[in-house]
């Protein structure tokens, strides 16, 4: 692959949306509504990209006549988060989710049953409803096409361009033909999803429950642009079956009240209403030398099994085929619960710090979706991403009415050129995925679910050494490999942030999201505050504490 002149193409747009998933599509709709020229760049094919690839089975929204009031919904977002949430954003989310539900209906998503009612799932959450979301992403992308919004597929952002503390666009890479692109944008919205590829996964590094294309590029891009991040010490843990390992619809399992039993079919716990509770139980059982644990599907009614299957068909249809492939009959067979798996940074809790207008701390930059911090309510990821995506697009479009394009920072441009061309020009180097495996092993061995200070310090030392020794020996023979190299750099950055923030927070908070064996209790007196991460002008990673956001309105 030849190294082209950098760059091959320059595009000008008002609002650049990086990531064409739930948040990105709704950001684009909102900006388009206000007359902005919008460009979406998407690393894959937009039709099925991101975590909505195969659909979603539920959403949570406030409506006094359908679910619960805005205030009640906002309380359910804030109360479980032990302070790690912005109450103002929580209220905005609660207030505006239903508007996005109406927008989904307008674009053809079937939110209601055939008789016009909305099916509630109060057991999962007081504001939860079930809907037929299998074709959600298809309807969204049909709307993108209908509006003739410019979409550039198979293209990822590699760095945001910054001119005098303002984001003025991005350098992008086409992951198929290797061409580089400079997109000049008056405002940029980051909607690239969470940071998932941080820990080892059994089987293959991409066998995640969620879309593994989400390597944290948006978080890394925001960091290098000088934006503030927070909550990077918190992580998500998932619980799933051991066979087949690919299985979604955990919410549907709990809705169906599938009992959790041991090998002798004795119940292990009474009511498990949240995945977090189940994760805690699995961990405690393992530490007590007990296990294995099973979901006792034969113990539930046939009607519940049918409802479960319906939910799975909306979220991950192929999971039912996998069950059949493995000869598992839910009417007769228990399904073993796998070990706990670390998913990466806690989506909607750790990530880019945004204000009420979804602005990051650098001018011209907005963010929404799994990569923003202090939103809470992980179980409503899709609708939260759409709601804040809409908001980001709206405020980005308003902002660009008043301004022109920024200037190119030539030094930054040249630095990025050097960074991206280096692996292309290097022969016989390491493969990006091999080095990624090393990083993820370090995180699993030295950080993991139960964090210990000295282990994490050793992990940080190894991470730094690994980066220093090997990153500049990675080669990329194809544009696809260059994509993996860019992701690898993001993973290194995020791993460093996660270790440093976890070390700094000398307490445990939010259950398994941040559990320190050496500081096992919550310490509100010293640690009911945020840890803010920012890249300093000299390049160093700075961490400092800050008070929690204050609630501005009474509700």
């Amino acid at each position, binding site marked *: 692959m030849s190294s082209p002149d950098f760059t091959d193409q320059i595009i000008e747009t008002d609002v650049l949306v990086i990531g064409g998933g739930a948040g990105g599509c709704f950001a684009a709709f909102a900006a388009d509504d206000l007359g902005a020229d919008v460009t979406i760049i998407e690393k894959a094919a937009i039709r099925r990209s991101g975590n909505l690839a195969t659909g979603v089975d539920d959403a949570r929204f406030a409506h006094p006549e359908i679910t619960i009031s805005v205030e009640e919904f906002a309380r359910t977002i804030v109360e479980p988060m032990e302070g790690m949430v912005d109450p103002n954003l929580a209220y905005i989310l609660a207030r505006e989710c239903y508007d996005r539900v109406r927008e989904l209906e307008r674009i053809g998503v079937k939110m209601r049953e055939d008789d016009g009612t909305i099916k509630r799932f109060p057991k999962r959450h007081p504001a939860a409803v079930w809907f037929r979301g299998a074709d959600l992403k298809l309807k969204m992308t049909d709307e993108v096409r209908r509006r003739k919004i410019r979409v550039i597929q198979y293209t990822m952002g590699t760095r945001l361009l910054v001119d005098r503390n303002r984001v003025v666009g991005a350098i992008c890479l086409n992951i198929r033909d290797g061409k580089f692109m400079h997109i000049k944008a008056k405002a940029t919205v980051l909607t690239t999803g969470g940071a998932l590829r941080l820990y080892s996964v059994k089987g293959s590094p*991409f066998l995640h429950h969620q879309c593994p294309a989400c390597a944290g590029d948006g978080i890394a891009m925001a960091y290098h642009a000088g934006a503030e991040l927070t909550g990077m010490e918190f992580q998500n843990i998932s619980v799933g079956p051991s066979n087949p390992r690919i299985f979604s619809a955990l919410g549907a399992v709990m809705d169906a009240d599938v009992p959790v039993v041991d090998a002798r079919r004795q119940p292990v716990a009474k009511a498990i209403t949240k995945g977090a509770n189940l994760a805690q139980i699995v961990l405690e059982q393992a530490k007590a030398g007990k296990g294995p644990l099973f979901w006792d599907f034969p113990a539930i009614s046939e009607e519940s099994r049918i409802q479960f299957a319906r939910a799975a068909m909306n979220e*991950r249809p192929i999971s039912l085929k996998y069950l059949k492939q493995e000869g598992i009959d839910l009417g007769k067979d228990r399904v073993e619960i796998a070990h706990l798996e670390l998913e990466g940074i806690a989506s909607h809790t750790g990530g880019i710090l945004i204000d009420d207008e979804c602005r990051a701390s650098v001018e011209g930059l907005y963010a929404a979706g799994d990569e923003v911090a202090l939103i809470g309510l992980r179980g409503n990821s899709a609708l939260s991403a759409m709601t804040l995506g809409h908001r980001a697009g709206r405020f980005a479009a308003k902002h660009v009415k008043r301004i022109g394009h920024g200037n190119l920072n030539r030094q930054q441009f040249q630095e990025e050129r050097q960074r991206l061309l280096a692996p292309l020009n290097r022969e016989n180097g390491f493969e990006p995925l091999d080095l990624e495996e090393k990083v993820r092993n370090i995180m699993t061995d030295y950080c993991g679910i139960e964090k210990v200070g000295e282990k994490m310090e050793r992990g940080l030392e190894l991470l730094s050494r690994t980066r220093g020794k090997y990153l500049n020996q990675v080669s990329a023979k194809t544009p696809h490999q260059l994509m993996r190299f860019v992701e690898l750099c993001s993973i290194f950055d995020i791993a460093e942030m996660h270790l440093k923030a976890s070390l700094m927070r000398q307490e445990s908070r939010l259950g398994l999201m941040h559990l320190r064996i050496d500081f096992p209790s919550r310490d509100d007196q010293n640690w009911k505050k945020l840890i803010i991460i920012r890249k300093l002008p000299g390049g160093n990673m700075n961490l400092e504490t800050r008070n929690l956001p204050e609630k501005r309105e009474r509700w």
Partner: protein
Amino acid sequence: MDVFGFDKDQQVAVVLYPDECWYCGVCELECPEQAVDVRLPLQVRD
């Protein structure tokens, strides 16, 4: 995840990056010729 490519000599779609698949099953849903049959890899089966 862009795991598919195209073999120009054979004029067929190929799985270029099987190790990067997350077995979401979208390819099976989307293939207009219904030519894709996804099976879980051995590592995650009993």
